[in-house]
């Protein structure tokens, strides 16, 4: 058996009470991330990717809240901790990288000060040691002339350089888990390649567990070890990245992969999934994907799809592809 996972999420449910009724942006989601492993989370806009990550770090915006399920970090249950306790875990045990680097950086404080404050909050070091560490972590993420630029403000950096600073900030207290939500979506291809390579290298060297949220299948393929495909708040498929992307078991994963230009190479038309993802307030009965699914049968319209998790089948589907019925 492998070692205990760094992060373990079980049957997580996030609910939002609204005038129209109770919405479930995260519906019975279970997954593990091991040390040194990168879990990719993909899905269309509104599928619940960010909510899943934010629930783990206790960053849900009201009125969204966790209503059931468990979250374990390094063997400790954290979903019931107070906000204050959770804030301590953030930074020390969990680092965060978001799409917009400016959400993680204070525009009015030099980057070096932000780094040393985070380091000193979580590690027992002197101010001078913290500054040395801050310079080293900026060097590690590839900021040229780090010792000179440490007193610069965030606005003095380009978008790509800012995201490097955010990564330095996320990793400076040596957390065991990093949650990166669309870290390269706002960046150009060449800078994206730099940032992804950086994230991969640092996490591999330190054995950090990473949850990488993105809608870019290419980034997932090149970066993740395993992938979780989300649809309408639920996990549609969870498994090793190569297997899920090349031989999907869930018809949604298959449709998603098929609709990319690469999959239809040489053909005049792209493969289409009919319709669009339903809004949370208007989910169909049974399997959430059934109205768009080419394989749907009565069973799918009448019964919620089977649940998946680390020990369960790969696809939340009554009639998974690639398996003889």
């Amino acid at each position, binding site marked *: 058996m492998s070692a205990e996972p760094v992060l373990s999420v079980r049957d997580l449910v996030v609910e939002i009470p609204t005038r129209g009724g109770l919405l479930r942006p995260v519906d019975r989601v279970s997954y593990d991330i091991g040390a040194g492993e990168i879990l990719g989370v993909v899905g*269309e*806009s509104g599928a619940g990717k960010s909510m899943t990550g934010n629930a783990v770090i206790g960053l849900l915006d009201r009125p969204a809240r966790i209503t059931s399920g468990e979250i374990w970090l390094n063997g400790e249950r954290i979903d019931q901790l107070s906000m204050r306790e959770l804030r301590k875990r953030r930074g020390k045990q969990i680092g965060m990288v978001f799409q917009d680097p400016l959400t993680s950086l204070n525009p009015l404080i030099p980057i070096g000060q932000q780094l040393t404050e985070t380091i000193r909050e979580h590690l027992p070091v002197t101010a001078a040691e913290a500054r040395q560490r801050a310079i080293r972590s900026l060097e590690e993420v590839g900021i040229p002339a780090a010792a000179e630029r440490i007193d610069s403000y965030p606005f003095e950096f*380009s978008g*790509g*350089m800012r995201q490097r600073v955010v990564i330095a900030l996320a990793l400076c207290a040596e957390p065991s888990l990093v949650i990166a939500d669309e870290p390269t979506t706002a960046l*150009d*291809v*060449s*800078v*994206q*390649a*730099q940032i*992804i*390579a*950086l994230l991969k290298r640092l996490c591999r060297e330190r054995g950090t567990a990473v949850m990488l949220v993105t*809608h*870019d*299948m*290419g*980034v997932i*393929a*090149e*970066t993740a070890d395993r992938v979780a495909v989300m649809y309408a708040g639920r996990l549609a498929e969870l498994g090793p*990245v*190569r297997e899920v*992307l*090349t031989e999907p078991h869930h018809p949604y994963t298959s*449709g*998603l*992969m098929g*609709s*990319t*230009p*690469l*999959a*239809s*190479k040489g053909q*005049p*038309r*792209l*493969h*289409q*999934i009919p319709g*669009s*993802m339903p809004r949370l307030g208007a989910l169909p009965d049974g399997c959430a994907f059934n109205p768009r699914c080419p394989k749907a049968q009565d069973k799918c319209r009448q019964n919620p799809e089977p649940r998946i998790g680390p020990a369960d089948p790969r696809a939340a589907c009554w009639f998974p592809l690639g398996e003889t019925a």
Partner: protein
Amino acid sequence: MSLVSIQNLTRVFDVSKPWLNRVIERLPKRYLTAVSDVSFDIPAKTTYALVGESGSGKSTIGKMVVGLLPPSEGGVTINGIDLAIETDDDKIESVRSDIQMIFQDPYASLNPRWRVRDIIQEPVVARGGKATGLAERLLEQVGLTASDADKFPHEFSGGQRQRICVARALASEPKLIVCDEPTSALDVSVQAQVLNLMSDLKDEFGLTYLFISHDLTVVQHMADRIGVLYLGRLVEEASPDALFDAPQHPYTQMLLEAAPRMDGFGREVEPPKGEIPDPIDPPSGCAFHPRCPMAVAKCSAERPALKTVGESRVACWVAQGDT
């Protein structure tokens, strides 16, 4: 014959600080060359794609082609008429109605207080044309229903809104549609629907597209010819097959190498060097030379012109074999 012909197109923006600041801080005027000496043709009924990273000048070229922005130098002729110098109002009007534009953000580009019918008919009504039943017919053509004409934009998803934008663009029966990142805000599955629609309409109406995108896989699928921009300059132009199988310009090679691949499991890329330089003060000679692994002395001294190499056009001394 080419429907669109773009010659030595250049656009310079004045990005100086306000006059008073300049005087007090003793700053010189500052100019940014967003598009520099770009020339290409678009034959009728074909799709020409412009690719390049953020700030490379794609949208600025698009705006000059539709006449939203005057060029600083050079020009755009459409059907032999250059809008910037033409004086005959009838001719200007006829060219104007031949061109439409579709933007990236289907949310921002639809007036939220207008009904879909009025949005779609607007380009026709604004020219005093008759529009009875037009919106209904176009809605069905783009895969929505006639009854959607009475609804407001907020009642539609992102993909459906982009279909409405396409319907509006078709209303004046244009010959050329400039599409600026038409699917960048959409999910892949919705993107597939919109791209298919655009291909179908092109065949049906004999449309010509100038298709702007930073997504190489989308461009490969849609384009008949692709132009690659770097810092406002056209550095390579080729057919999709030639460009993807044998890119000639080191920048194109870098871009293709860096783009994540859906079949690139465990691929370790050597990430590209450096970042895009400040466009206000671009590098001398070939603007790519500080990041280029092939650069020779000539590259920083002289700017290479776009020249035919095989089936492609390339602006690189090394690719031209002229070092």
